[in-house]
C-alpha cells in the first residue's frame, strides 16, 4: 500500500537530485494559462482523492469519467462543423457537402446583422451581409438553408444568442413544412446571453429582458420541442476573448447556475428544464490542462445540480458538451501548421469526453474556410475516431497523477471564482461592474506579453519564422453581390407577403412583450407570415431597450 508521506519524502529527495544533476531548459514551466507545472506528479499529489467519491464510473455520479456508461464504445461523438456564409443557397450547398463527406450533425453560422437583429437592408448591415456567416432575414432564407435536409434525422445547432428564439421559431416552421413535428426536431440554440455580456459582445437587450426571453424559450421547449437543447452555456467565447482555462471553466459554470436559478424562479421544477441545458467549451493548446478542465467541469456541475439545486433526475446532473478547437491558437503564418494544432486540440477534447466536436480549418485566421480546408478538418476527426485507438476505452487518462491532481486543482480554483462572483452580488452585477471583462482582458494582455518576450513560443510567429512567406492555400472570398441579392430578395418577400397579417402578428408580439405572455408562440406566428427577424427584434428593442456596456481594458 502506498504511503503518501513516504512518497512525498522520496520525491523531495529525487527533486533535490534532479536540481543538482541537471539544468532545466527553461526558467519556469507553465501551462497555456500561465499555471506552474511541476516536473513530476506522484501518488501524494492525489492523496486526498477518493476514487468512488471523486472519480467513479462513466455514466455515474459525479461523472468525472464521462456522462454516458459506454461513451465512444457505444456511439462516437457527433462530428459537427460550424458552417455558414454568403447566401442561404451557398450555405445549403456547404451543408450537403459536409453531410456527403461523413459529417453527422449540422451547425449554422449566421452573419453579424442576423446575430445583432438587423435585416440585410438595414444601414448598419452595410458591408456585413453574408460575410461572417449566412444572412437570414425571413423564414424563406431558412427554407433554403435546410432544403433537402432531413430534419427528423440530422440534429442542427445554431450559433445565435439575442435572436435565438426567433431562429428556433423559423426552424420549427421549416420543420412543419417538411412534415416533421416539433416533437421530433433535435438540435441546439446557443441562446447564452450571459457570455455575450462577458466576452463576445453580441448582445441587444439589457440582462433582465434577455433572461426573460430565455426562460420563455425553456418553458416552451420542455413541452413542445422536448429534443431541443435550449441553451448551450458557452465557455468557448470567453476563452477566445483571452481568458485562462480556469476562468473559462468558472465563468461558464457560473453562467449555467444563473440559468438554473432563473428557471426555478420562473416557476419550473429544476428537472423539467435542466436536462436540456448543454455546454460548449474551447479546446486550447495545453493538452493536459484542457482534459482536466473537461473532467472538472462535469464533476462540479453534477455536484452542484444534485447538492445545491436539488435535481433528482440524473439527466439534470449531466454536463453534456460540444467542443471547438481554439480559433485563437491558429496562426496566419504558415497556416498548414494549424492542421497539427487542431489535431492536438481535438484529441484533448476526445480524451476529455466531448459529445460533439468542431475542428477548425487551417485557413480560419485568413478567411472563412474553403472546401478543401474544412474537409481536412473533418478528416482529422475521422482519423482520431477510427485510426489511433483513443475511442476504444473510456477516459484512459484517469488515474494519471498529473491529470487527477490538475482536475482537482481546477475544481478548487473554480470554487474560488464562484465565491468572488458571489461576493460581487452574482453574475449579472459582476458583469455590470466589468469584473469578468477585466479578468479576461488582463489574461489576454499577459498572454500577448509572454509571446512578445518569447517566453511562449508560437511556431511561425515568434520562432521558426519564414521571412517573405507567401500564403499558398486557397482563400474563400465573399462577393459583395451576396449583399445586393439578399436585399433584393427581402424586398420581394415584403411585397409578396400579407402585410396586414404581419402587422397584426407583430402587434401581438408587442403585447406579449409588454404584458408578459410567453414570446415563443408569438415568434412562431410572426415567422409563418414571413415577418422578418429585424422587424421582430425592432419591436423588442422598443419594448425592452438596448444594452450599452462600459468598456474596460
Amino acid at each position, binding site marked *: 500500500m502506498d504511503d503518501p508521506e513516504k512518497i512525498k519524502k522520496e520525491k523531495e529527495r529525487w527533486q533535490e537530485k534532479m536540481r543538482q544533476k541537471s539544468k532545466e531548459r527553461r526558467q519556469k514551466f507553465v501551462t497555456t494559462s500561465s499555471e506552474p507545472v511541476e516536473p513530476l506528479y506522484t501518488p501524494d499529489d492525489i492523496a486526498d482523492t477518493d476514487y468512488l467519491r471523486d472519480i467513479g464510473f462513466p455514466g455515474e455520479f459525479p461523472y468525472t469519467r464521462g456522462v454516458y456508461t459506454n461513451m465512444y464504445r457505444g456511439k462516437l461523438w457527433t462530428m459537427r462543423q460550424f458552417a455558414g456564409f454568403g447566401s442561404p443557397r451557398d450555405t445549403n450547398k456547404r451543408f450537403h457537402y459536409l453531410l456527403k463527406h461523413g459529417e453527422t450533425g449540422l451547425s449554422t453560422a449566421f452573419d*453579424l*446583422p442576423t*446575430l*445583432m437583429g*438587423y435585416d440585410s437592408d438595414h444601414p*448598419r*448591415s*452595410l*458591408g*456585413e451581409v453574408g*460575410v*461572417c456567416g449566412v444572412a437570414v432575414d425571413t423564414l424563406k432564407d431558412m427554407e433554403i438553408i435546410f432544403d433537402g435536409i432531413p430534419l427528423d434525422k440530422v440534429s442542427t445547432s445554431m450559433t445565435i444568442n439575442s435572436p435565438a428564439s426567433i431562429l428556433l421559431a423559423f426552424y420549427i416552421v421549416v420543420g412543419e413544412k417538411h412534415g416533421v413535428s416539433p416533437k421530433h426536431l433535435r438540435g441546439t440554440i446557443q441562446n447564452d446571453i450571459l457570455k*455575450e455580456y462577458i466576452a*463576445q*459582445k*453580441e*448582445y441587444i437587450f439589457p440582462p433582465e429582458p434577455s433572461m426573460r426571453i430565455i426562460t420563455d424559450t425553456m418553458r416552451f421547449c420542455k413541452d413542445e420541442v422536448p429534443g431541443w437543447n435550449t441553451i448551450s452555456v458557452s465557455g468557448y467565447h470567453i476563452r*477566445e*476573448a*483571452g481568458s485562462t482555462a480556469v476562468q473559462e471553466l468558472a465563468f461558464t459554470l457560473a453562467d449555467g447556475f444563473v440559468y438554473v436559478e432563473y428557471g426555478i424562479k420562473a416557476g419550473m421544477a429544476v428537472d423539467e428544464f435542466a436536462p436540456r441545458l448543454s455546454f460548449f467549451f474551447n479546446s486550447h493548446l495545453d493538452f493536459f490542462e484542457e482534459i482536466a478542465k473537461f473532467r472538472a467541469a462535469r464533476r462540479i456541475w453534477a455536484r452542484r445540480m444534485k447538492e445545491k439545486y436539488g435535481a433528482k433526475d440524473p439527466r439534470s446532473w449531466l454536463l453534456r458538451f460540444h467542443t471547438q478547437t481554439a480559433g*485563437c491558437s491558429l*496562426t*496566419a*503564418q504558415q497556416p498548414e501548421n494549424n492542421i497539427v494544432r487542431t489535431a492536438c486540440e481535438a484529441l484533448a477534447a476526445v480524451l476529455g469526453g466531448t459529445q460533439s466536436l468542431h475542428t477548425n480549418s487551417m485557413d480560419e*485566421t*485568413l*478567411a472563412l474556410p474553403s472546401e478543401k480546408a474544412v474537409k481536412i478538418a473533418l478528416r482529422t476527426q475521422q482519423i482520431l475516431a477510427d485510426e489511433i485507438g483513443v475511442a476504444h476505452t473510456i477516459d484512459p487518462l484517469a488515474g494519471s497523477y498529473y491529470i487527477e491532481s490538475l482536475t482537482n486543482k481546477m475544481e478548487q480554483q473554480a470554487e474560488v471564482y464562484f465565491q468572488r462572483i458571489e461576493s460581487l452580488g452574482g453574475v449579472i452585477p459582476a458583469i455590470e461592474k466589468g469584473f469578468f471583462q477585466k479578468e479576461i*482582458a488582463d489574461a*489576454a*494582455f499577459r498572454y*500577448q506579453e509572454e*509571446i*512578445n518576450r518569447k517566453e511562449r513560443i*508560437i511556431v*511561425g*510567429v*515568434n520562432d521558426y519564422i519564414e521571412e517573405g512567406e507567401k*500564403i499558398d492555400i486557397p*482563400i474563400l472570398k*465573399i462577393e459583395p453581390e451576396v449583399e445586393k441579392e439578399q436585399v433584393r430578395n427581402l424586398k420581394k418577400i415584403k411585397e409578396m407577403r400579407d402585410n396586414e397579417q404581419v402587422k397584426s402578428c407583430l402587434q401581438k408580439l408587442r403585447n406579449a412583450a409588454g404584458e408578459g405572455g410567453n414570446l415563443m408562440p408569438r415568434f412562431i406566428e410572426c415567422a409563418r407570415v414571413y415577418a422578418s427577424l429585424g422587424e421582430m427584434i425592432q419591436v423588442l428593442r422598443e419594448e425592452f431597450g438596448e444594452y450599452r*456596456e462600459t*468598456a474596460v*481594458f
Partner: protein
Amino acid sequence: MKERKIRVLIAKPGLDGHDRGAKVIAASLRDAGMEVIYAGLRQTPEMIVEASLQEDVDVIGLSILSGAHMTIFPRVLELMRENGMDDVLLTGGGIISEEDIQKLEKMGTGKLFGPGTNTNDIVAYIKEWCEKNRRAVEKEEVDS
C-alpha cells in the same frame, strides 16, 4: 516645453464584438506612454471621426475581424478628408488579406497589421510616424 503625449483613439467599427485585439493593443499603447481613448464597440465611421476630432487625436486605430474592412476603412478615410484631418494617421488590424491591405494602403491608410503581430512593432510604428509627422508640422510653423 513638455512634449504632448501621443493621443490614440482605438475603436471597433461594424457589428462585430470580438474586442480582444482592440483591448490588447489599447493596453500596449497605454503602457508605452500614449494616451488611449478606447471608443469601444459598434462605432460607425461617423462616430469614429467625430470622436477623433473632439479628442484631437494623432492616430486612429481600427480593429476589424468581420470582413467589412473594404467598406469601413474607405469611408473613414473619406470622412477624415472631408474634415481636413490630413495630419492624423489611420491604422488598424484584423483579418484582412494581403491583397486588401495593399488596396487600402494605396487608398491612404497607414500600415495595417495582421494576426500574430508583435504589439511592440505597432508601438514602434506609431511612435515613428508621429515623430516624422510632428516634425513636419513644426517645420511648417518655422517656415511660415
